[in-house]
């Protein structure tokens, strides 16, 4: 009996059985990965978001370097705080320009309907979220390197800096991905994105700036732990809220 059936399948498409329950975890993760790969491929072909992000970061780093990159700058606590603030301003504004791309593009090319019919909502969210995390990682790597080279930022504790950048970037991604999905359905998309996102990312921004300043100075990894905990908690809370709320955005 079993064999007969297999012959009937005759080398054509086969449904993954665990996917038949509409919310199988593996099925959703597999679909998320497909969305991520599709977006990455599209991004590599158009290079829209990455161009915006990198150019923005480069402009910001050069502008900052022209202003405060002179050799004689003393490394006081205030100077470190200012450098950290400038770094995060550059990251923030680059992110607010590039991170909405994933959803806005679906809306602008009107591919949203095709995706809605085929993909589970969670898979769409997770796929786009992964791409945003990747974009932010690239952005942070480039921006901080530019700051180190052009602005002569000296890093006291590289480990603490990397941890802070990673946790801060994660907070940015969790907070903004669902907002990107929201503004994709509205008009004045790009302006609205910054307006919606800014008040929500004030808390992680403050913590990330302070922790970055400490990492530039002499503060080691142990000193960065409370900030990392805070950023982690913020990421988890906004991520879980996004998972719960995304369905409503996607169906709107």
């Amino acid at each position: 009996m079993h064999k007969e059936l297999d012959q009937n399948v005759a080398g054509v498409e086969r449904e993954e059985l665990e996917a038949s329950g509409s919310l199988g975890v593996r099925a959703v993760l597999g679909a998320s990965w497909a969305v991520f790969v599709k977006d990455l491929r599209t991004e590599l072909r158009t290079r829209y978001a990455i161009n915006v992000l990198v150019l923005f970061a480069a402009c910001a780093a050069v502008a900052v370097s022209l202003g405060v990159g002179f050799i004689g700058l003393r490394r006081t606590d205030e100077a470190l705080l200012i450098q950290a603030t400038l770094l995060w301003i550059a990251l923030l504004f680059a992110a607010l320009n590039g991170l909405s791309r994933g959803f806005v593009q679906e809306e602008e090319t009107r591919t949203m309907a095709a995706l809605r019919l085929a993909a589970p909502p969670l898979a769409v969210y997770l796929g786009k979220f992964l791409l945003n995390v990747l974009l932010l990682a690239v952005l942070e790597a480039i921006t901080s390197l530019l700051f180190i080279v052009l602005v002569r930022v000296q890093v006291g504790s590289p480990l603490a800096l990397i941890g802070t950048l990673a946790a801060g970037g994660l907070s940015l991604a969790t907070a903004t991905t669902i907002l990107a999905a929201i503004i994709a359905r509205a008009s004045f998309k790009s302006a609205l994105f910054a307006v919606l996102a800014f008040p929500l990312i004030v808390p992680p921004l403050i913590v990330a700036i302070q922790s970055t300043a400490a990492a530039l100075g002499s503060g080691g990894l142990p000193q960065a732990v409370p900030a990392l905990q805070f950023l982690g908690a913020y990421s988890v809370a906004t991520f879980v809220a996004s998972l719960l709320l995304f369905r409503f955005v996607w169906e709107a």
Partner: protein
Amino acid sequence: MVQRLARLGKLLIGLWLAGVAIAMFLVVPQYEGLGNAGRIVIMHVPTAWVAVVAFTVSAIFSARYLWRRRPQDDDYALAAAESGFLFTTLATVTGMIFSQVVWGVYWNWDPRQTSIFVLLLIYAALFALRAAIDEPQRRRQLSAVYSLFAFVTMPFLVFVAPRIADSTLHPNCAFIQGSQCDGLTLEVGKIGLLGDRKVQLLALERNGDVVTAQVKVSEPGLTAERVLSPSFDLVHEEMVARPEFPGLRYQLGLEAVDLEANSALLNIEAPGTGLLENRRTLFTFLAAIIGFTALFFWMLSVRATLLGVQWALAQRAGGRL
């Protein structure tokens, strides 16, 4: 019957708030050092409280909308956000006036100022979002999601805000239990910090029952130093002279003296400290909070009803809203 009750309720709220306004000037004693400006606190704190209540109510109705998808719930969420915005603005403005009169600055990124500023931004973002979506069902749904999502991030703001500025102008001793108003014990000649003000106890001089301390005070960002002389009555165990810090309405109090150890307990007395210890003030204060909360809920129901009527009319006309 219901209508009559509603009318009665409306009248009651009006009378109640009128009473609060009168009590604000007639019942509440003028607090030392604050002058008449202190009375604005009776308005300021309740409006700030209502701002928080409104934000919560809006989030609750947003969740209900997503749950049941009834337009009425969205009307309530929007009405709560609108009244909340109004009260938030009121709280900000009254706070700024008070701050300017008493402390000489309109704004100093005090934790609570930061929180309320972010709250204003969130409301503004919510209205901008609603304005940017034409399709009513989508507008309701997306703004409900944003409102809930913003609500989730608020606790983090409350937690993080105190890290922005070390000092607060808000008189925590008056309103918040457990805040640090313990003061500072100094031996003669030693230097210490009260808030972010550097103080040095220069000398203690006894004159009969009254001990006068000579304290050198320097403000952060100020080069000028001043010597203040607060004093303490040993017999009655109470402060006598409480000089003000230069340029501020804060006072320096000498709260206790240990002549054998040659040390003294110094503390900052914020104007408004102990304000609520006065019974009449406390009751006026509570009445104001009740009144403003009732006012908010009344505004909420009126505005939500109005929004419902508007929507029904638009649907009947077949036009676009």
